């Protein structure tokens, strides 16, 4: 299941050249660009791991791409996204965030049903694309 989230989520994967251009736009707007990765792409999971610190005072996207590639090398089977933080008064939050890397195999979500009182059923989407955890869940 191909997970989509963030900006450009309905477009095909961005090439490195396209990523560079988007990052260039962010830098031109004086956003601080950061890179995050996770193995848990649940839409409610806002806490991705940070790859290094956000990058301030950059002029050129080459540096960001260098970091992206290093992150890809370290976590080829994780989701990696680039975020751009706008510190302008009144905004002070992420302006753009888009996925730049995804695992070759995306297990997607597992639906867990919990029966509660009155045969009522509660649903939990187990977002864990964690390969190991998905496997463990299967073997239960």
């Amino acid at each position: 299941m191909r997970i989509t989230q963030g900006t450009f989520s309905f477009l095909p994967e961005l090439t490195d050249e396209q990523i560079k251009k988007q990052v260039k736009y962010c830098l031109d707007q004086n956003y601080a660009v950061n890179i995050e990765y996770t193995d848990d792409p649940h839409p409610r999971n806002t806490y991705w791991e940070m790859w290094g610190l956000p990058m301030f005072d950059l002029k050129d996207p080459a540096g960001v791409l260098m970091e992206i590639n290093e992150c890809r090398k370290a976590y080829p089977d994780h989701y990696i996204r680039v975020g751009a933080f706008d510190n302008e008064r009144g905004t002070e939050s992420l302006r753009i965030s888009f996925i730049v890397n995804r695992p070759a195999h995306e297990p997607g979500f597992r639906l867990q049903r919990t029966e509660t009182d009155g045969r009522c059923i509660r649903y939990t989407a187990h977002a864990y694309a964690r390969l190991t955890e998905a496997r463990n869940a299967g073997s239960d």
Partner: protein
Amino acid sequence: MTESGLKPVGSPGGKASGEEVIDLHGEYEASNVQEVLDRLDHELVGLQPVKTRIKEIAALLLVDRARRSFELTSETPTLHMSFTGNPGTGKTTVAMRIAEILHCLDYVREGHLVSVTRDDLVGQYIGHTAPKTKDVIKKAMGGVLFIDEAYYLYRPENERDYGQEAIEILLQVMENNRDDLVVILAGYKERMDTFFQSNPGFRSRIAHHIDFPDYSADELLQIGQLLLGQQSYRLSEAGERAFGEYIDLRMKLPQFANGRSIRNALDRARLRQANRLFNSSRTQKFVKQDLMTLEAEDFYASRVFAEGELDQAQVFSI
């Protein structure tokens, strides 16, 4: 490097077949390089070998661009440089101009200059250096990274020094990210030579070694007048003579830092001029000229004349 590169005359948009004529001169004028080179000529007195080399580099890049429009393959030239010369010979200023020239010729994308020293690259504890160095490199990408007094990076007396780590990262980036940034190492001649001897990797990755000569007394006087002109001051005739004498004496003293010493001397002369005007203000009224003019006595009061020694302020300001 970009789509805005050279287009052969007569084939708008298309690649040249080889018969087309290319107007190098027109392209040269369109690229604003002339403007930057002119400014270099005006703002920097002397430095002939440096200026010649910069013009050569500009020509190389221009021809390279022309070649590319004919689809002649040539590797992107390596433009890492080392600037050697005594203090105050204009290394930083030239580096800034180089960044502009490279930007005009599309060699670097942004054309900014990031000036750092050892402190900005080398960390204090294990694992601190690599992120620090990379941070600086990322900031410099698309422009020029200017490492002042680069020999401090290498401290042979301490084998656990973290400088070595910074050097290794730099070498790697200089090789792999040649399209992204230009590294300029600067420092005093002798110490840079020892530095290159113990780090042969640097020497081979740097294509242009540019030596900045010391200024002659005449050139220093010109620099002084240029500086004064920028601040709307002028020298009286006697003042000019006194300043010339001052320069001759000052050059023989230790800790002479070329352009920088001149700037400091002028700052002190301004101080004395202000003091002179203030003290005589009870008895005298001044016109605009008086406020602009530095007189001989503003220079003769310097301790360089009195005792052949440095001014106290001078010792500290170097």
